């Protein structure tokens, strides 16, 4: 008897990623409709203290998978531990965030369990008692609605910033289990995290992006200043990345990251189809471009036709006033 909607808790150094709370909030509704438990799966070392907080966001139960070999994420250790726990408990579904780690882990766990996986989903719903996921294909130029009708657990990774976080204020039952991490073949030699005071691009509520109109790497400073006033992340179009002005990890678009912030501010970005694919699910799009014919104005909710080097610093001052 399969039971339980599972949410994988993504954490690094004891800090839970926001997408985990989003999945718990969305998973709570699914679990209630199915009359099943919502379970958080928390692998790591010294992470048991995070369990209480997961109850607040809706988990009925938290499986704490403790092991020294789970201190840093490795594909093998995490996939073995999660798949082993799933084999013992036979859940209905496993949800993970569509992050770099979530994608990596989900594929291995799905294959270990011989089941189906739908990735980067932007919607999940119950239709006739069946979990149905909607996911973008062709980088958002089309969507497919799909399900995993027979194999269990049904697995999906959900795009960050899609589900609104709602606290449920439960106190979760904590089940601590020794993790079965198996043979770990990836040896982590070094971890280099970029020190940034800005939020992660895919998680940010506001993104300030620059394109060819930035004219050079030095000019990204004005976007960073605007971003810092807004608590925003900085992004870029492929044109700016290909010109070598900013590294690929900032690229938004079909061959970069897909973002769904509340506000996306496109500066000097023409709006090529490849860029639109990565940001058109943003709630509100703002464009600043000196070319009134630029494609970006066809999708923007608000636009200013003007010189970004003049407009962006003015916007920064105006935002400062209202956010002060």
């Amino acid at each position, binding site marked *: 008897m399969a039971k339980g909607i599972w949410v994988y808790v993504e954490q690094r150094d004891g800090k839970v990623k926001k997408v985990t709370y989003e999945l718990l909030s969305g998973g709570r509704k699914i679990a209630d409709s199915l009359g099943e438990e919502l379970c958080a799966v928390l692998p790591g070392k010294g992470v048991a203290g995070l369990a209480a907080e997961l109850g607040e966001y809706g988990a009925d139960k938290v499986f704490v998978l403790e092991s020294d070999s789970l201190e840093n994420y490795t594909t093998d250790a995490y996939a073995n531990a999660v798949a082993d726990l799933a084999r013992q408990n036979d859940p209905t579904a496993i949800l993970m965030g569509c992050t770099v780690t979530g994608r990596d882990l989900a594929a291995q766990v*799905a294959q270990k369990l011989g089941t189906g996986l739908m990735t980067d989903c932007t919607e999940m719903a119950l239709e006739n008692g069946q979990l149905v996921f909607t996911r973008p294909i062709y980088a958002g130029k089309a969507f497919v609605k799909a399900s995993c009708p027979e194999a269990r657990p049904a697995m999906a990774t959900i795009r960050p910033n899609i589900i609104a976080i709602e606290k449920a204020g439960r106190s979760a039952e904590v089940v601590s289990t020794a993790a079965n991490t198996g043979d770990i073949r*990836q040896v982590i030699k070094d971890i280099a995290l970029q020190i940034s005071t800005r939020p992660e691009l895919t998680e940010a509520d506001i993104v300030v992006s620059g394109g060819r109109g930035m004219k050079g790497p030095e000019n990204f400073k004005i976007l960073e200043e605007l971003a810092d006033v807004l608590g925003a992340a900085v992004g870029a179009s492929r044109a700016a990345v290909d010109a070598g002005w900013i590294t690929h990890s900032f690229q938004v678009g079909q061959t970069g990251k897909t973002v769904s912030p509340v506000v996306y501010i496109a500066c000097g970005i023409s709006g090529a189809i490849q860029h639109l694919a990565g940001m058109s699910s943003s709630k*509100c799009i703002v464009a600043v471009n000196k070319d009134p014919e630029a494609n970006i104005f066809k999708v923007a909710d608000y636009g200013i036709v003007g010189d970004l080097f003049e407009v962006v610093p003015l916007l920064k001052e105006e935002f400062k006033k*209202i956010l002060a």
Partner: protein
Amino acid sequence: MKIVVCMKQTFDTEAKIAVDANGKINKQGVSLIMNPYDEFAVEEALRIKEKTAGEVTVVTVAGPEGQDALRQALAMGADKAVLVDPGMDEIDEFTTASILAKAISEIEYDVLLGGFRAIDDGSAQVAGRVAEILGIPVVNVITKLEIADGKAVANSEIEGGSQTVEVALPAMFTAQKGLNEPRYPSMKGIMQAKKKPMDKKVLGDLGLDAGQVAPKVKAISYFLPSARAAGKIIPGEPADAARDLVKALREEAKVI
């Protein structure tokens, strides 16, 4: 060193997508390219081949049209190509990975490479599944790969940074942009590619049947996103426009 690259032909990044009368994605008249991430994988394979006097085999699961991407890889310098036509109406990543793994298990390999995702279905899971079926480790989203003494050291992207990972070979690696600059096929390469072996198989040739690799995930429907309507252009001098825009974001859109 024997290198196998899993690859795929995809729609061009500039392609407009439409749904046909049967409710499926319309493939008529769409120009096809090698998945851009697979180009990085092919290039990396060729660089390893050049350093180690190796051999590169490219493998795809596709209908006959998939040959074009394989030929491009051969023209870049790959030695052999394998195309497995599943001959099935509906497939998923489980199907593709099961077939690829079976085809690869018949080839000698030290290094497996693939793009970290394809730009069409963007699912980023086939390579990982193939590694799992073959019982070898995977390192995803790499931007650097060094191979020596039966081991590989890769830089792989993680949330907010990167890490250096060591694995013993054989292993699977998936390529991210930044790994290398793919070469263009030379005229000589294109001519030579025509004579290189292209092994076309069907499931039966691999001892598989459609039931064994039946998809786990079923598509219910395809649809296009509702078009975003163009919004307002805020008029006026820059200072006035900036002030009015911020006001609109706060009071009208209520997003700031």
